C-alpha cells in the first residue's frame, strides 16, 4: 500500500539521528584535523595525528587498553559460556538462584560497583586482603601497584559483564533444536563431541556478537579506571577512554581527543572485521 505515513513516523527519529549521530560522526573526523588549541580553530592536517604517533601517553593508554582486551574478554567469555552451558543443563538445580546471582550485576551502575570495588580492594582494610591474610598470604597493595591495579579493573569488568554475556549466550543455546542433540546421542556422540559439533556451531553467531560487543565496549573503557584507580598508579591503568576524557574534557583539546576517538573507532572496526573473518562459517 502507498502512503506517506512511514515518512512521518520516521521523521522524529531521523531528525535526532541526524543531529546526534550522523553529523557528529562526520564532524569528529573533521575535528581530528583541526588545531583546536588556537582560536579560531585552524585546519592543519598533521597536527593531531602526528602528535598521536609521537605521544608516549597515548601509547601507554593503547597498550593498557589492548592488554585488558586480550586478557579480560577471553576470560569473561569463557566463563560466560561455561555459565550458560550450566544454566542450560538439566543437571543443575536451583537455577533461579544462580540466574539471579550471576545476572544481577547487569542492573548495577558503574559508579556504584566502582565505589564498592575500591573498598573491597583497599590495602589495609579491604575484604580481599583480609581474606588473603586469613589464608596466610600477605595480600597486595592493590590500587597502588601496576599489575594488581590492572587486575582489579579486570576483576571489576568481569564481575559486571560475565552475566550479561551469559544471558545472551544462554538465549543462543536455548535456540539450538533439541533434535540435534538427540540425533547426536543416537550416533553415539559423547558430551565433548556434542559440544564440539552441535553446541559450538549452534551458538557461533551469538558468540561472535558477544565478542564484537565486548571489543567495542572494552576499547571505550572509562568509568572503572576513572573511579577505581584514576588511571594510576602512574599511568598503569590509563586507558584510551580515560585519555580521551582528559584531552577532550580536562584540556578541552577537542581536535586531539577526536583523533583518539577515531583511533578507537578504527581499532574497533579492524578487530571486529578480523573476528568476523576468523570466525566465519566454513
Amino acid at each position, binding site marked *: 500500500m502507498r502512503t506517506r505515513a512511514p515518512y512521518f513516523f520516521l521523521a522524529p527519529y531521523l531528525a535526532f539521528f541526524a543531529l546526534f*549521530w550522523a553529523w557528529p560522526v562526520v564532524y569528529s573526523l573533521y575535528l581530528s584535523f583541526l588545531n583546536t588549541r588556537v582560536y579560531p580553530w585552524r585546519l592543519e592536517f598533521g597536527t593531531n595525528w602526528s602528535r598521536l604517533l609521537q605521544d608516549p601517553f597515548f601509547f601507554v593508554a593503547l597498550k593498557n587498553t589492548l592488554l585488558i582486551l586480550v586478557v579480560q574478554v577471553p576470560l569473561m567469555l569463557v566463563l560466560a559460556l561455561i555459565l550458560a552451558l550450566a544454566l542450560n543443563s538439566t543437571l543443575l538445580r536451583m537455577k533461579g538462584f544462580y540466574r539471579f546471582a550471576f545476572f544481577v550485576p547487569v542492573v548495577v551502575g558503574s559508579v556504584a560497583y566502582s565505589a564498592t570495588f575500591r573498598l573491597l580492594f583497599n590495602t589495609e582494610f579491604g575484604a580481599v586482603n583480609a581474606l588473603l591474610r586469613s589464608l596466610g598470604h600477605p595480600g597486595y597493595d592493590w590500587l597502588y601497584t601496576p599489575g594488581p591495579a590492572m587486575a582489579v579493573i579486570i576483576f571489576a569488568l568481569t564481575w559486571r559483564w560475565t552475566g550479561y554475556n551469559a544471558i545472551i549466550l544462554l538465549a543462543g543455546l536455548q535456540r539450538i533444536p533439541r533434535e540435534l542433540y538427540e540425533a547426536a546421542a543416537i550416533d553415539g556422540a559423547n558430551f565433548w563431541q556434542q559440544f564440539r559439533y552441535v553446541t559450538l556451531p549452534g551458538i557461533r553467531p551469538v558468540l561472535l556478537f558477544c565478542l564484537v560487543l565486548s571489543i567495542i565496549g572494552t*576499547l571505550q573503557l572509562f568509568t572503572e579506571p576513572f573511579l577505581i584507580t584514576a588511571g594510576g598508579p602512574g599511568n598503569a591503568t590509563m586507558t584510551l577512554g580515560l585519555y580521551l576524557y582528559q584531552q577532550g574534557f580536562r584540556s578541552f583539546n577537542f581536535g586531539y581527543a577526536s583523533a583518539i576517538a577515531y583511533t578507537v573507532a578504527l581499532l574497533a572496526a579492524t578487530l571486529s572485521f578480523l573476528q568476523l573473518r576468523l570466525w566465519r562459517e566454513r
Partner: protein
Amino acid sequence: MRGRRFWLSLGLQALLMPLALLWLAPLWLMFVFATRPEYDIFRVPTPLLPGTAFCDNLNNLQEDTDFFRALWNSIVVSGLSTLGAVLLSSLSGFALAVYRFRGQAFVFSLVVLTLTIPYFTVVIPQYILVAREFQLTNTYWGVILPFLANALGVFYMRQVFLSLPSSLLDAARVDGASELRIFFQIALPLVTPSLAALALIFFLNVWNDYLWPLLVLSEKEMYTAPVALGTLIGLTRVSWAGIMVGSFLMTLPFAVLFFFLQRYFVAGITAGAIKE
C-alpha cells in the same frame, strides 16, 4: 545411570555455588557497609552482617552531597528520555516493519550501521552541540537529548512489529482508521510487554550512565545520582558508608525489579543478538 547423573549434578553444584556466592559478595557487602557505622568499614575482619546505622549514614551522605535531589534528577532525566526514546523507537520500528516505501532499505541499513559505531566518535560533537550551540549545560534537556535517538530501540521494535499479523492492521484500515490511530490504538497495545522490556533497559541505561551527565552537569543541584556519588569518590574527608548508602539506593530498586521481572530484562538484553 541415575547414580551418575546424581553425582554429576552434585559436582556441578559444588563448583558453581562458591562462584555464585563470590558474585553476590560485592552487592551483599555494599548493603552491609551501608548499614554499618563508618568505622566498621575500616575494620578487619570485614563485617558480614548488616547493622543499624543506615539512617546515620544516609544523613552523612546528605551532608556530603544533596543525594535526594540527585535521585530526583536521575528519575526525571531517566523517565523523560525513556518516554521519548521508546516513542521514537516504536514509531520508526513500526514504519520499517509495516510499510513498503522508497528509502526503506537505506534507513534500515543506517540503523544497523549505527549499532556498530563506538560512542566515542560522537561524544565530542554531541558535547559541542549541547553545551555550545544549544547552551544546555546544567539542564535536564542537555542530559536527555542525545538519548532520544536509539538505534537498538528501532532495531528491536522493528523485530517486534514484524511479528504482528498484518491482518489486524488491515481490518482497522477497512474501518477507516488513520495510520497514526492504528499505531497508537491497535499496534502499540498489542506489544506492551516488548515496550516494557525496552523501557526498562532504556531507563536503566540512563539511570546508570556516568560519562554524559558528568560532561554536561557541573552544578551540584543538577547532578544525577551517579555524578553526585562519583564526585565524592575522589575526596578524602567523605563518608564512605554514605557512598555505600548512595550506591545501595541506586541499585536496590533495580535489583528488586530484576528479581521479579527477569524475563523483561533478558528480552531487552538479547535484543539484537538473537534473530526472532
